[in-house]
């Protein structure tokens, strides 16, 4: 997957979690929890959304590495992927 595709996956998952948010206005390198008021349930749903779209397993200890859109894309690009 290209970085752009990964970015789209992250944005799509965020769109389901916060349907009212204007995703285009998100700052890609600012903390998502601050921009979107994400809580732990939202973070879990983000991880599930990414997994469903890409097959990438994200262990719990790596959740902090998904803090911003840029960070998430960089992290996902470096992760091995199982079949979705």
């Amino acid at each position, binding site marked *: 997957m290209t970085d752009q595709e990964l970015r789209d996956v992250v944005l799509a998952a965020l769109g389901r979690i916060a349907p*009212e948010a204007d995703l285009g206005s998100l700052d890609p390198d600012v903390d998502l929890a601050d921009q979107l008021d994400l*809580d732990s349930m939202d973070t879990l749903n983000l991880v599930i959304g990414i997994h469903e779209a890409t097959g990438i397993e994200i262990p719990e200890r790596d959740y902090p590495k998904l803090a911003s859109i840029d960070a998430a894309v960089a992290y996902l690009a470096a992760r091995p992927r199982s079949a979705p």
Partner: protein
Amino acid sequence: MGEFRMPSLGADMESGTLLEWRVQPGDAVHKGDIVAVVDTDKSAIEVEIFESGVIGELLVPVGDKVPVGTLLATVLPPGATLATPPAAPPAAPAPAEVPAPRAAPAEVPAPPAAAVARAAAPHASHLVSPVVRHLAERLGVDLDSVAPTGAGGRITRADVERAAPEVAAPPPAPAPAPAPAPEPSPAVAAAPAPGRPRSSPYARRLAAERGVDLADVAGSGPDGAVVAGDVTAAPSAAAPAPAPAAPAPAAPAARTGADRQASMRRAIAASMERSKREIPHYYVGLDIELGAATAWLDAANAERPVAERLLPAVLLLKAAALAARALPELNGFWVDGGFRPADHVHLGVAVSLRGGGLVAPAIHDADTLGLDELMAALRDLVGRARAGRLRSSEMADPTITVTNLGDQGVTTVYAVITPPQVAMVGFGRVAERPWAEGGMVGPRPVVTATLAADHRVTDGLRGARFLTTIDKLLHAPEDL
């Protein structure tokens, strides 16, 4: 005959607006089925029915705001058939005729006078139920011009509908109205929104069945969404809604975000004012070491696919539910000057909504659920709370509530009890702190649990017992 009334969806609710009917007269329903959607100050709630049977007549039209307790629909015994079956709309005998807009031309039984708080209109010469009067207002029909056909000279709903101005119907139907309404009928349908109008799934199905084009229907739901009632009312009701001369409030107010915010704020204000005015709170707190719980959770989650992982909150909720069962004086309601314990633990969970405000719906029988079931229930509940699709039973009956502000990074929550409950549990964030034990100090995950409780019912000793019970439970996470 059974009755389906506007439920009380929380102690602070006085009235609700009917947003959508999910059933039609003649539909068989079972206990627990969702039959309507009601808008409260806080959110749209799916309302379940508490008896099985057959829907008789829908007495309150979509868009009406009525007090708690108002009769919304009659419910016939299971297996009953309607005395006058609803006019089959697509198979109407006269091809040119406009499909009958509503169901049975049966007489509308008047709801209890006190229930419908609407000033008596100056039509003393006619016998007319408040529901029919309201329908007449909506349709712009002067009741003085309507020929009554009901028993004892009553004006029935069908009479009003016949007298309604026939406008906005796509085919130029020869109006079968015996008494055309004298009022000018603004023959303009609401301007169809560009593109596909927002609509509820049931409304789309209904529209397909009836051959109604959704683009021609004025939506009365949230943000102008088309709901089932709009479709059923489409042939005659589409036009009068924006009538400038109509004395009645026109279309049901489509709520804007700001609107919702303001009304939710008012609802919270009313409930919290009452709480602080009436409930003598006391507070106790306890730091709970979570080494065992966190280790158990990490190990469990490491083996699970993402979709089955548990949040730490689930352990806290389960422990709180079990503690509530162990200390029934904290699980129940203060009503009529006395404490009434609940015979089950319906655990309210405070869910903050994006954009502000919160709701605290209940997870039913939380003390009996396994952790996986509880996690699934929590995910479902949080998702629906934020999507505005909670159910009436969840809103009405939490027996004790938990607030978990740990995600916000605070250590301690000093909660305000939601009346008529008598206790509220708070959890701060789970964080590593220096923890002394057995003469050693080391870093351990710790959470601060608090309890706000009603001093009329319990004293600090019981409250302390509650928290130490939670502490004990969290030290044996495998048993939760």
